[in-house]
């Protein structure tokens, strides 16, 4: 009768606090360099210890340069923030993955390395000072993005004070057409339910389309839950999940793995679980999707015109007219990467498009692998060569141009075809820069064409 959300919540609920909020135990805490230094300072000031240092893992991703990652970083602020995190982790006994340190080869975007290392597991509660923590729900975890004061709370007590969420079941049924990806599915869901439709909800994704998806595809879906207002998004664990986890660095081994699978199955939503709301999405009807506006809900299918009633502020900022199309929009920059679409399968799909083609002369194109492990796997498959030969810059791992805290930024009114998650005004580092969100394959196609195109045309040529 119960959902995974309720099962996991109940297993981790410590007690009802005098305020009426629930004290929830956090099974895995992930930390990065930008939202944690003040939290460590706060616990230091109070003389608190880190309650469960072995349940916290850290990396550097937001500010790290992706051009050269040798230490000390050329960017002195990046070096300082990394050094501060190193000192904090050393002082409190926390495992850190950062360039130049032990385990530095596992550095990467926090939401890429958690699942990759097998740290993220079904049935866990996970917290991280980053809103895209919802990504980890792809493995059947309940994962919350939190602020810095809450990072302090988790460090000090391994707990959060929270109000429970309602659960909305989103069934995606049917067969995605060629050239249509998980990114298009989540952009469609956000467009349908709105950027604040998920406030107060955890999104449970299911249905035949989601069931067939790989874990990496499910991560793309869960990652952008927050863009729809839902702090938490998840998929129930299944055989795909168990196969993904087997053999990973922090996954249980041997008989312990079998016992784990048994528990993971037991915490999944029951088939007769009760939901606060249900929504169905038809996968067959989804087209390659691109955003035209200044929030991730403002999108169209590539063959579709922007609504006649579209938001004026967004149209003006982006330079689009109501009733016009995004297809054919000239781009200046192409960015493939981020916690949404910076994993191996994303790079493989983009490489399939660019192989044997070349980036348009006026376009600056970047590929930023989500982690050093992703980078190594891609290099082993020769993807770096395909991208470089096509005129892409092949970079080191990090968040890069998704939020432009490092030198990877838009300039002036540049238009960027981006596989990231946010098209907010100023998001990519220029206050007037413009972001068009789309799948990595669509970004690759736009890079080659020099303008937004329907990736399906290029895929046909690949097949031919």
């Amino acid at each position, binding site marked *: 009768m119960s959902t995974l959300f309720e099962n996991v919540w109940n297993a981790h609920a410590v007690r009802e606090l005098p*305020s009426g909020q629930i004290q929830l135990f956090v099974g895995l805490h992930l930390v990065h360099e930008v939202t944690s230094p003040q939290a460590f300072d706060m616990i230091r000031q109070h003389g608190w210890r880190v309650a469960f240092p072995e349940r916290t893992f850290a990396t550097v991703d937001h500010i790290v340069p992706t051009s050269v990652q040798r230490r000390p970083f050329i960017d002195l602020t990046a070096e300082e923030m990394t050094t501060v995190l190193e000192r904090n982790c050393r002082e409190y006994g926390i495992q850190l993955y950062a360039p130049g340190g032990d385990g530095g080869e596992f550095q990467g975007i926090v939401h890429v390395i958690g699942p990759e290392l097998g740290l993220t597991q079904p049935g866990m509660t996970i917290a991280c000072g980053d809103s895209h923590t919802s990504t980890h729900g792809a493995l059947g975890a309940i994962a919350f993005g939190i602020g810095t*004061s809450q990072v302090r709370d988790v460090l000090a007590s391994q707990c959060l004070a929270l109000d429970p969420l309602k659960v909305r079941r989103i069934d995606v049924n049917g067969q995605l057409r060629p050239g249509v990806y998980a990114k298009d599915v989540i952009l469609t869901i956000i467009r349908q339910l709105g950027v604040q439709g998920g406030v107060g909800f955890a999104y449970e994704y299911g249905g035949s389309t989601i069931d067939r998806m790989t874990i990496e595809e499910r991560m793309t879906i869960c990652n952008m839950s927050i863009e729809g207002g839902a*702090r938490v998004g998840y998929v129930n664990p299944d055989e795909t999940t168990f196969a993904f986890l087997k053999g990973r660095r922090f996954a249980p081994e041997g008989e312990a793995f079998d016992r*784990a699978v048994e528990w993971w199955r037991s915490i999944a939503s029951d088939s007769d679980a009760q939901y606060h709301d249900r929504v169905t999405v038809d996968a067959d009807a989804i087209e390659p999707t691109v955003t035209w506006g200044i929030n991730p809900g403002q999108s169209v299918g590539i063959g579709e015109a922007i609504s006649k009633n579209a938001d004026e502020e967004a149209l003006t900022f982006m330079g689009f007219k109501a009733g016009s199309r995004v297809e054919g929009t000239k781009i200046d920059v192409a960015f493939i990467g981020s916690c949404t679409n910076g994993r191996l399968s994303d790079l493989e799909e983009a490489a399939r498009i660019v192989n044997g083609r070349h980036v348009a002369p006026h376009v600056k194109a970047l590929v930023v692998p989500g982690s050093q492990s992703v980078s190594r796997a891609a290099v082993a498959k020769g993807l770096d060569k395909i991208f470089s030969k096509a005129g892409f810059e092949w970079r080191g791992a990090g968040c890069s141009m998704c939020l432009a805290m490092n030198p990877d930024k838009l300039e002036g009114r540049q238009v960027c075809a981006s596989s990231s998650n946010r098209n907010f005004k100023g998001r990519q580092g220029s206050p007037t820069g413009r972001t068009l969100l789309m799948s990595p394959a669509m970004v690759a196609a736009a890079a080659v064409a020099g303008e937004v195109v329907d990736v399906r045309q290029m895929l046909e040529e690949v097949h031919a």
Partner: protein
Amino acid sequence: MAAITVVSGRALPVRGDDLDTDRIMPARFLRAVTFEGLEKHLFEDDRAGDPKHPFNDERFKGATILVVNSNFGCGSSREHAPQGLARYGIQAIIGESFSEIFLGNSAVLGIPCFVAEKAAIESLQGDIEANPELIVEADVDTGVISAGTLGLQATLPGGLREAFLTDRWNPTAMLLDDFEVVGSVASRLPYISGF
């Protein structure tokens, strides 16, 4: 810390739906290991492009209550956004709706986020724009917002209302109160013991 029962003062209306935390505090100001000075960078890019932005408007200087529209604070979980507001002197926010992460981050800083109907918010914003000297009073217990002749009913999420009234809005001490129970919950979780 202290109980927060009533916030009262002049107000500052910032109109617009879906004002995300990148807008409130652009990412380049997160390149620091402290929150110091963030109050200087609130809405910096919006302000640069709009001389009439309320945060540029001298008439609203010294305001302690922010009045906003729907889905305020969406996007990034950066506490730098409410930290900037708190350091600027904002003590309460009244709006149509808030992102959950922003609302929680504000609460921990002792800033209650009141939710009221669109029409009521818009009249409140209009009244403040017409008279920046208007004193707005927000009552945490009853949810009543009063400003001159205008009165409107707002709400706070249940747990937080109680937390503000009873001086429990900063929860760390509470979370550490009964730490043995935390240990026993952890010990029952199969993944903690390696299955």
